[in-house]
């Protein structure tokens, strides 16, 4: 059933996201013309055109980013908590499957948005020189791994991977924070949207409060002294890894809490208009 839910979720969101991606790619081709020298001609009209094309590209990037967020929030809100909720919440599927389908599909669109923006940027910057440099860079990494500075390169790659994982999980957790805020806000009898927005900021405040408390606590407990004194290999690089992994774990916990809140409110406190 999860697969069926996801299929229909992709149908519903794809009809918005795919045309946006198409626009992004088209504008990136336009902007590519600019980089190829529209600005360095003698004709004013081409100058103006060049600037407009770059602006269109910038707007397309912003639009794609904003829309992937808006679609994520709006699908949850419109599909589960508004009129369509009467159909969706009476399907023979569990609340967990509902949330996972929404979450996975949103995450896929987030990842796709990032990839599409990278692709679009590549198209804009596309010329022989750039491609040449790019492959040199890839080659350098592999050569580096083979040589003795492998230590740094490997660590760098690991940082990058950890960073990407953190960003990905972070955006999933953020989705869940939106879901939880909407689910809680819409359990009230009236002013559902006001409550939802209020809940979102309340959650945000609590997270920031707990986060700063954590920093203060970590600073005062002598954890750093313990680690540097008793673990001789614990250098700067290891510390960075530890912090990143710690952040990943925290993000998972923070996502899990919002997941639990969302399921509880959808199951027990659902209050469709």
């Amino acid at each position, binding site marked *: 059933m999860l697969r069926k839910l996801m299929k*229909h979720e992709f149908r*519903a969101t794809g*009809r918005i996201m795919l045309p946006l991606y198409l626009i992004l790619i088209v504008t990136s081709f336009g902007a590519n013309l600019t980089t190829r020298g529209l600005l360095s001609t003698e004709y004013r009209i081409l100058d103006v055109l060049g600037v407009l094309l770059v602006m269109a590209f910038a707007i397309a990037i912003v639009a794609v980013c904003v829309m992937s967020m808006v679609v994520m929030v709006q699908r949850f809100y419109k599909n589960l908590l508004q*009129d369509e*909720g009467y*159909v969706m919440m*009476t399907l*023979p599927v*569990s609340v967990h499957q509902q949330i996972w389908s929404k979450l996975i599909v949103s995450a896929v669109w987030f990842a796709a948005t990032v990839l599409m923006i990278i692709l679009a940027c590549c198209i804009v910057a596309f010329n022989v020189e750039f491609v040449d440099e790019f492959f040199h860079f890839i080659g350098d990494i592999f050569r580096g791994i083979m040589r003795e500075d492998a230590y740094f390169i490997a660590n760098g790659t690991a940082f990058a991977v950890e960073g990407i994982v953190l960003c990905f999980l972070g955006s999933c957790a953020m989705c869940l924070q939106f879901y939880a805020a909407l689910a809680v806000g819409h359990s009230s009898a009236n002013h559902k949207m006001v409550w939802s927005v209020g809940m979102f900021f309340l959650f945000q405040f609590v997270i920031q409060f707990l986060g700063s408390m954590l920093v203060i606590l970590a600073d005062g407990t002598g954890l750093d002294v313990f680690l540097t004194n008793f673990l001789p290999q614990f250098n700067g690089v290891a510390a960075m890894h530890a912090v990143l992994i710690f952040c990943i774990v925290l993000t998972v916990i923070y996502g899990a809490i919002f997941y639990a809140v969302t399921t509880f409110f959808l199951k027990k406190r659902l209050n469709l208009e």
Partner: protein
Amino acid sequence: MSILECKDLCKNYGRVPALDQVSFTVEPGRIVGLLGPNGSGKTTLIKLANGLLTPSSGEILVCGMAPGKESHACVSYLPERTAIPTWMSARQLLDFYEDFYADFRRDAAEEMLAHLNIQAGQRIKQMSKGTREKVQLIMVMSRAAKLYLLDEPIGGVDPATRDYILSTIIGNYNPEAAVVISTHLISDVEKVLDEVIFINQGRMVLQSSVDQIREEKGMSVDELFREVFRC
């Protein structure tokens, strides 16, 4: 086994009771009218049976199960408002119902759509309000469910559509399934019903068969309703 069973069912919204100690059963093969004035708790009761609300106390069982994923598979629910996703075309909606409900009879749905001259390629968004309601009803009645919960199926539609809806309900009759129709338009549905349940201010006032009321009181259910709920 009863298809729908309520035992001392209570639901409060905050401190306001919407349902108070409601107990009744609906047996297979019955078409039951859930009758009461506006705000009497009809919709609350139907939402509880669909798991869209959680009881404050008491119990509600659908096909012997508490409302949830499994009970949803045997209930076909017509909400009081149009809830089908409007961005879909009628055909996509058929795909949707076929995917999620094993008991969905696609051929029956297509036949009904064709009968009402509704194009399968047309988007729900582009349809008139009345047509949307018809499409939603077709989806609901095309399932071979155990329990049909129809919340105000004939409110706000023209008399011809009303007749169509009622004859669809009769034509779809199955001795193993039960139908619960909530409405305040009693004279229109009276002939279609086996039994009626009167509900007022969250309390059950009466459960009786239609012919029993006519035999004992010498009046129609509509007349009895007007008498019981006289303002």
